[in-house]
């Protein structure tokens, strides 16, 4: 499996090839924000960006998603019979996705598609129909720490193709069969690029200065971490908004609602957040996560203790640093982890 070469000016060749088969999505710039959008124009494709403001998880797990519809009339013949929503009509490609975000999807696959019995059909449909073409990070942000959570700016987890930006050209590395077949027509790169990529990778990784220690978190008993005295202080400044969870590429909690109007009814699921008291509020009035401390602890315990425990060691954080950027009160996940580990 070799490397392919593509001059950046000729990105059109790749785009055309993709556009023939797929709807193409990529991060595009609007003001100071970079966000995922369907690409209609070749010129919108960006190479000079850090990462999208919001993660691309909404493309697989929309903030509001209809699960099924029904006729809200018990007397009608088809009354209350569930009607499936149509699957994704067209296959898609996500171009220039960062390795951290792609890795987030492979982690979420373990949640949404763990086994036959707990298959999330909505997630699976979109995952199956989407090709991920990654763009390695040559210049990670100050808030990035992917190397500390089992990933890398050049990570390949979850990707079909990894592209490496060499300035005027791109190196394409096929990772899956699906990816390889997409790039097979392109010019073969010399074998020396492997070492070049390796150098770039090392240089990118060395730019990540954050060091996280997680040994104690992972080795200690669950309850010991749960009862860590640090939680008494951490929650104080938290305002329990959901910004961190909505920006997080791996946060995946949702709330299910039935909505009706006249004869029409539908079930929708919406992003929800463990920061909200309502999220765990029982019909009885009891709330097992009744205080702010419970809720703040939950988010970090989930990512750094429960998920590794349940998902064969996979940490529920990919180190993208978005929560650090958006937290209104500057709760920094890097400090949280290091303090949890004390």
């Amino acid at each position, binding site marked *: 499996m070799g490397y392919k070469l593509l001059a950046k000016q000729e990105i059109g060749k790749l785009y055309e090839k993709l556009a023939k088969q797929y709807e193409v999505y990529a991060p595009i710039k609007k003001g100071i924000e970079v966000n995922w959008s369907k690409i209609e124009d070749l010129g919108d494709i960006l190479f000079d960006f*850090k990462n999208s403001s*919001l993660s691309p998880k909404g493309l697989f797990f929309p903030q509001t998603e209809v699960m099924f519809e029904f006729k809200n009339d018990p007397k009608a013949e088809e009354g209350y019979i569930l009607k499936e929503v149509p699957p994704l009509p067209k296959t898609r490609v996500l171009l220039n996705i960062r390795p951290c975000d792609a890795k987030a999807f492979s982690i979420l696959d373990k949640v949404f598609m763990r086994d036959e019995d707990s298959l999330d059909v909505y997630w699976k449909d979109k995952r199956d129909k989407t090709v991920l073409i990654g763009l390695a990070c040559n210049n990670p942000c100050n808030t990035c720490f992917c190397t500390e959570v089992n990933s890398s700016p050049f990570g390949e987890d979850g990707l079909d193709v990894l592209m490496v930006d060499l300035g005027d050209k791109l190196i394409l590395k096929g990772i899956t069969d699906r990816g390889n077949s997409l790039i097979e027509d392109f010019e073969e790169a010399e074998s020396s690029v492997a070492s070049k990529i390796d150098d770039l990778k090392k240089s990118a990784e060395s730019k990540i200065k954050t060091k996280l220690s997680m040994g104690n978190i992972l080795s200690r008993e669950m309850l010991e971490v749960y009862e860590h005295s640090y939680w008494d202080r951490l929650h104080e400044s938290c305002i329990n908004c959901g910004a961190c969870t909505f920006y997080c590429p791996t946060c995946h909690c949702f709330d299910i609602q039935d909505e009706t109007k006249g004869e029409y009814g539908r079930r*929708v699921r919406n992003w929800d957040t463990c920061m909200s008291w309502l999220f765990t509020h029982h019909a009885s009035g009891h709330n097992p996560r009744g205080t702010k401390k419970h809720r703040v602890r939950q988010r970090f315990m989930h990512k750094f203790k429960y998920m590794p425990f349940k998902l064969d060691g996979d940490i529920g954080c990919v180190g993208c640093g978005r929560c650090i950027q958006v937290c209104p009160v500057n709760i920094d996940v890097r400090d949280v982890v290091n303090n949890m580990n004390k």
Partner: protein
Amino acid sequence: MLEGYTKEIREAAKRLIRDKKVDCVIGYSKGSIPLVDAPYFAYTEEECENLVWSGFCTKNLAKYLIKRLGKNALVAQGCVSRSIVGLINENQVKRENVYILGIWSPGMVDRRKVLERVGGKEIIDVKEDEEKLVVIGDGWEEEIKRKEVLRQNCYTCASRNAVLFDEFIGEKKESKGGGDIDNVAAPWEKLSIDERWEKFRETFKECIRCYACRNVCPLCYCAECFVDESRPQWCGKTQDEADVYTFHILRAFHCAGRCVDCGACESACPMGIKMRVLTSKLEKDIRNMYGYEPGMELGAIPPLSVYRPDDPENFITP
């Protein structure tokens, strides 16, 4: 970080803790990323050394007094002290349980404006004094006048000095932001009805309903917010436009006659939504019709908890 003020805050905080005047001093500590400072709770003299004062103290610390036990000292610039007055008037905070370290605000910085100014480039560090910021990136540096990148609400500030305090940090300085709020409040009034709706949509359609604006606001202390109510459910949980807009209309309306225009909502919004367009309209109407300015006076009765026989009635269909 503004060093003179920082030093004085630390001294005062340490003294209060040492003399057991308060259990905790609530202020700001230096944030882990540039242009953002973090609310901080200092319980010991040692922790008081982490307190700072800067142009990035954009939250409203009065929020933390609600339902908080013990006696707390709070670093409060004008708007925050006004929120404390409001909370005392609304019986949410007891005056004797809060020790207000009043301070002058140099006008807080709008992080987005700075990022726009440098074209979205990554900022590594920021230095500041009362007049300017020096923004430092990887291999570049830019000097920006503070007054060019203030938050919008800081330009029309009614009181930069704390209005209620037990002790004042530093000296009282020019208290007005300089701009006239009545010139900039309610910017859509001049538009046609459909243009207004378009502006309203444009402003709020990006909302992701993280509720940072609600949760950062010291006015939002209801035991159960209307968006969380389910029987009846006034506001759906979806991203449908009607649900998003219902949230914003009612959120603003619930702040009527209480909003001190501290700007915390806009500073907290990760999407950069300018929700003050709604609160500024309400507060302008209240000033004009009822002659009331929130948070200026202990014991004042909020305008929606009172009436006058001759209140204006031009909402009545003639």
